[in-house]
């Protein structure tokens, strides 16, 4: 296998191992659109990172967190529903990111790479980011697993039972921001949420417990990365979209086989 292909595989698997379990929570908590919004704001993070000459990954995380805070603040008014607010923030921040990038004439960046991923050009530094960031994310997720699950099922019951709801929610939001920064190189900001949602949804066909669903989601994500990269190499497909299509195919294969698990 070529060197760049091996690096792509290692990076992709690292991302899939984290987006699977985290994506399960995104799906359970109905936060798909929220993930999309944070991902779109990542481009603004990239632009600001270059503009202010700070680490781009760090800038992405900061912008994602700032956007999440802004959303929470906006949710205190009661006229507009959350999905409307998310639509405003999502497209507003994406467009702002595009404008800032356009202003920086001296900078030649690969915009397509940021939008749709550039997994075949990942460097060893990228891989370090992904695996170290991924390990941290999984550790934190394991740590908040039970309280987060309890408040996903019923937030007030969890509060009465002693779950520090606000801190756990903040930790979860930070995890999503971290994973977006990690996964951007692999599938790009427009496709990141697919790695959160599709493997988790695929896993639902076969899982009987939340933990099974998280593990199966990680597995489905890894299969999609492997399959997508293989197809990309074999038929010269764009790698990021090939991974997403592979994930979607797995979902439909799972749907066809769902009779093997109890329906609910």
């Amino acid at each position, binding site marked *: 296998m070529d060197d760049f292909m091996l690096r792509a595989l290692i990076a992709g698997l690292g991302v899939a191992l984290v987006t699977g379990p985290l994506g399960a929570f995104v*799906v*359970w908590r*109905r936060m798909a659109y929220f993930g999309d919004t944070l991902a779109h704001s990542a481009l603004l993070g990239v632009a600001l990172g270059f503009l202010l000459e700070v680490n781009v990954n760090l800038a992405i995380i900061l912008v994602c967190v700032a956007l999440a805070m802004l959303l929470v603040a906006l949710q205190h008014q*009661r006229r507009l529903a959350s999905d409307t607010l998310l639509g405003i923030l999502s497209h507003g921040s994406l467009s702002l990111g595009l404008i800032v990038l356009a202003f920086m004439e001296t900078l030649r960046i690969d915009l397509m790479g940021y939008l749709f991923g550039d997994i075949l050009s990942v460097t060893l530094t990228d891989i370090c980011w992904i695996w170290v960031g991924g390990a941290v994310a999984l550790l934190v997720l394991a740590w908040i697993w*039970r309280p987060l*699950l*309890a408040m*996903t*099922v*019923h937030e*007030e*019951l*969890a*509060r*009465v*039972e002693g779950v520090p709801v606000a801190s756990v929610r903040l930790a979860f939001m930070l995890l999503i921001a971290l994973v977006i920064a990690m996964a951007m190189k692999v599938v790009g900001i427009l496709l990141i949420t697919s790695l959160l949602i599709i493997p988790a*949804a695929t896993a*639902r066909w076969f*899982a*009987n*417990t*939340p933990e*099974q*669903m998280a593990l199966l989601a990680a597995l489905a994500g890894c299969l999609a990365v492997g399959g997508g990269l293989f197809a990309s190499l074999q038929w010269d497909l764009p790698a990021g979209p090939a991974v997403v299509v592979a994930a979607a195919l797995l979902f439909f294969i799972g749907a066809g086989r769902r009779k093997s698990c*109890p329906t*609910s």
Partner: protein
Amino acid sequence: MTADQILAEAKGICVSLQGRMVLDGVDLSLNAGEILALIGPNGAGKTTLVRVMLGLQRPDRGKVSLRPGLRIGYMPQRLVVDSILPLTVRRFLTLGGRVSGQALRRTLAEVGVERLLDSPIQNISGGEMQRVMLARALLRKPDLLILDEPVQGVDITGQAELFALIGSIRDRHGCGILMVSHDLHLVMATTDRVLCLNRHVCCSGHPEAVSSDPSYLELFGAYPGMALYTHNHDHRHDLHGRVTDASGETEGHG
């Protein structure tokens, strides 16, 4: 009544939600081993008062004091687990904290649904769900159980069984129970004391006494055939009680 027998006490609770006064100077106290029913029409502030007692809602004025170290078991009004989340009854019961398999089985047996231990939670009926939620509250070994409309979504026979179960839980565990109901006659046999709420406390006392209290009757409508005594009512309500038929059963609950 000594101080350590009082599990929870609320004094002068006032809460406004979105500019509307929901609770106005409500007092409540609950003793160890006592079953107190909180009744009142829709919008009377029952759930808000429960949320204040649980610490989920900060009152604008007034104070809640709980006995130090008090363990509360809470059963919310409604809990629906989305089918995207694969969850068995066993896993649901352990969400509140680690418990032994033996304790799980014993508690489920106590509420009468032991066979459901490994069922997906989306497959069980409304009445079974209420019992499973009761089991989760009991697993915390509570000194105080707070049950918000515990018989919601349960048919008439099931309701009587569930109230009998709640009574027997108090007898066995000796915990105090605060439960919300919109209908006095449903909870009458089980409760020691009733607090009739309509933003403020209309009346309280033994269920028999409350059922003939004029402020209760004004709130819920008089029951034909029930002996009434005259009494000058000292306040008015802007909310009218629901209509009841001759058999004394309230329409439209459940």
